[in-house]
């Protein structure tokens, strides 16, 4: 679904969520590359269609640039690229999911928003410990939904290296 439909679906889901049982949590799922990912609906601030961003010099590939969102300047992270895939070929059909982590707002570039999932914590499987890669820690678990594995994103770990550790960077820049 595109940005507008996604917003409508989110609103409906939130309304529906009030009636569902209290232990069920809601997640927004979206597609990036061939995979499905999801984040807690609480951290989602806004969903908007892709617009051109202003690129930043000498940053990792997955930092696509910055965007003006009603006067705030937000970085846009290419999710597929951040997780080891190639750069997303953007089109106006692409979607930016704006999430909030620790008072900071970041946009995730994804292909499309898929669904609103309502599920309880027990249904989320832990990440298998087979992978030695540091990357595996950016997932907090998996949810199997109709034969599809949805990876739950751990936002602080996903964004940590650029967005949240900036205090450290500021210090090194100060000299």
């Amino acid at each position: 679904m595109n940005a507008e439909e996604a917003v409508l679906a989110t609103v409906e889901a939130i309304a529906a969520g009030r009636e569902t049982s209290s232990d069920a949590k809601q997640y927004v799922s979206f597609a990036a590359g061939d995979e499905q990912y999801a984040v807690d609906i609480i951290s989602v601030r806004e969903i908007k269609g892709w617009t051109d961003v202003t690129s930043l010099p000498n940053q990792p590939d997955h930092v696509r640039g910055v965007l003006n969102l009603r006067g705030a300047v937000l970085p846009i992270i290419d999710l597929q690229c951040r997780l080891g895939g190639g750069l997303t070929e953007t089109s106006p059909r692409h979607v930016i999911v704006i999430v909030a982590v620790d008072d900071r707002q970041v946009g995730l570039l994804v292909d499309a928003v898929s669904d609103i999932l309502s599920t309880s914590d027990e249904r989320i499987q832990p990440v298998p410990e087979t992978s030695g890669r540091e990357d595996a820690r950016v997932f907090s678990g998996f949810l199997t939904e109709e034969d599809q594995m949805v990876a739950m994103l751990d936002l602080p770990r996903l964004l940590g290296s650029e967005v949240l550790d900036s205090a450290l960077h500021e210090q090194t820049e100060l000299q």
Partner: protein
Amino acid sequence: MNDFEQFKQTFFDECEELLQQFEDVAGTLKAGSNDPAGLDDMFRSVHSIKAGAGAFKFDRLVKFAHELENVMDRVRSGRMELSEGDPEFIIEAGDVLQDLVAAARRGVEAAAGLEDEALGRLQAMLAGGSVDAVAADVENVCDKGGAGDFRIDFRPHRAMYETANEPQLLFHALVALGELSVVADLTKLPDLAKMQPDEGYVSWQIEVRGVPDRAAVEEVFEFVDGDCDLTIEPLSSVAASPAEVVVEPEVEAPDAKPVAKAENSGPAGVQSTSIRVELERVDQLVDMVGELVIAQAMALDSLSELVDIRHVKQLQALEDLTMRTRQLQEGVMAVRMQPLKALFQRFPRIVRDLSRKLGKSVRLELDGEATEVDKTIIEELSDPLTHMIRNCMDHGLETPEERQAAGKPEQGVVRLSAEHRNGRILIRVSDDGRGLNPEKVFNKAVENGLVDADAELNKEEIEALIFMPGFSTAAEISDVSGRGVGMDVVRRNIQKLGGRVTVESNEGEGSTFTLALPLTLAVLDGMLVSVAGERYVVPLSAIVETVCPDASVIRALPDGGTVMPLRGEAIRLIDLCQSMNLSRHGQAEPLRKLAVIVETEFGRRVGLVVDELLGQQQVVIKSLEANYRRIEGVAGTAILGDGRVRLILDIDGLAAMAGRNPDISPKGGEIAKPEEATGGLSA
């Protein structure tokens, strides 16, 4: 924060102002007679602090403020004259008061005995301090003698009721002082039909006996002073006057008391005309107006494609709107502006203390205190300016003996001035001391490994060396200007504010430090440039000139950089396309490049190579760090009229980057593959 805490906070904020006010005048006190208006201010400051402190039960503060207030009261009413040494003591007493307030603010008990010495002296002044004048003697008798009986003629105006003052409460306060009898004068009371409910018709003759002193009585009426006719006389000197009606005030007052109305008639103009607003609220307004300006520019942008000559009226209306939006923005910005006085007035004291410590006689001259600057800048300027003034006094000015030997007046002069110029504010700190000795400065810089011994520097370049980190060495740190920081910290603080600091010095004549600062941190005058299809904002303040060098004059350097000559100077060129890691996607480079000559913090000039200049624009600065991190070569971001974010270039950062080995891989996240991180970003 609950209400009580908030009141407390307000009290401490006010205390700061009041203490400052006290100190301002205290610095001008001299033995003998003084300016009565100033003395009144001092008295009121202490009185207000005492009143507030009482409400919060800061007992030590109240006690001390009370004695100080009494002394100030006598001085202002001419019943006590300051003798030699007293003005200095009053300044010290102000310090003690400040310490007590500071302790109360931190919620800790002030050091035991902190105020004892000053308190003792205040009490001694009160006990013995009388003026030889006969008239004062008479009053003094009334003050301290047992005959503390007063006759008070109290005739409230309508304004007193309008400020919600209540005569009955005043009477209650008087009861607490001594034996009280009150006579109400109802002769002015008109017929009921003609009576204005909010007029003050009733007056009172009050006799109060056994009061400790006159000041106590005056204090009761302190807050209605000016809103009533009030005479207070010692009872003995007044003949008993006939009473017409004797009533208990409890009965009379409610009847006579008009309802305090918010009607704007009457002389209620004594109220303060300023309000206190939380800075956060103002900032929200500034942000909102900033967004309004952007939104409006975007609307104009999109409309300008549609309208043509037939829509002159609509265009005019739009232009009108633009103008008003700008005015609104300026107006909101102006709310954040404050006169520099708040900052400058700290310095007379610092100079006074320091001149005593250093054994140098110093006169501080202030100029341009009314100049207005953004509040944030004022706050951030305090430390650098203090440091510079200390520096001037410690290192700049000579000892009195040296000055005499040099044929200068014994008293040194430190001058602090401010003025607006070209949309920036210039603050100068100058002294008439020994000035910088270029040779010494150079040798020291060589000694500390800052420059090569064979480097050829001109006078300005040598003087700029004192701003280098590591110039100020441990050996010369005194407890006055040392504190382990040097001029490099000053420079860094000023740069953080988007300003620059320069020094000009003539040996033997003194030095002048000039700070050039933006008026506000919220907007910036920028030059929009384009390179390889990207647009950037260059701070206008950094731009010296723009040149269009012929390709043949550009020379390559062994390290891969390029230089061009400009009036005999070799200017290093920074290719923005390269620094920003842009790719031209097959687009041809422009035939002739433009070099924007900019000045770095060291006064060094470099040329930014760009494709095109797009024009000058005022932009609203947005932090990149709010949601991301700092990026080398980028000072911040700005949102332009088209709603797009543009990067504001950090000239010094770019110069530093260009000076380094270009092979160093760009800094990236853990996942970034270095070989990929160099391309593709400009898509």
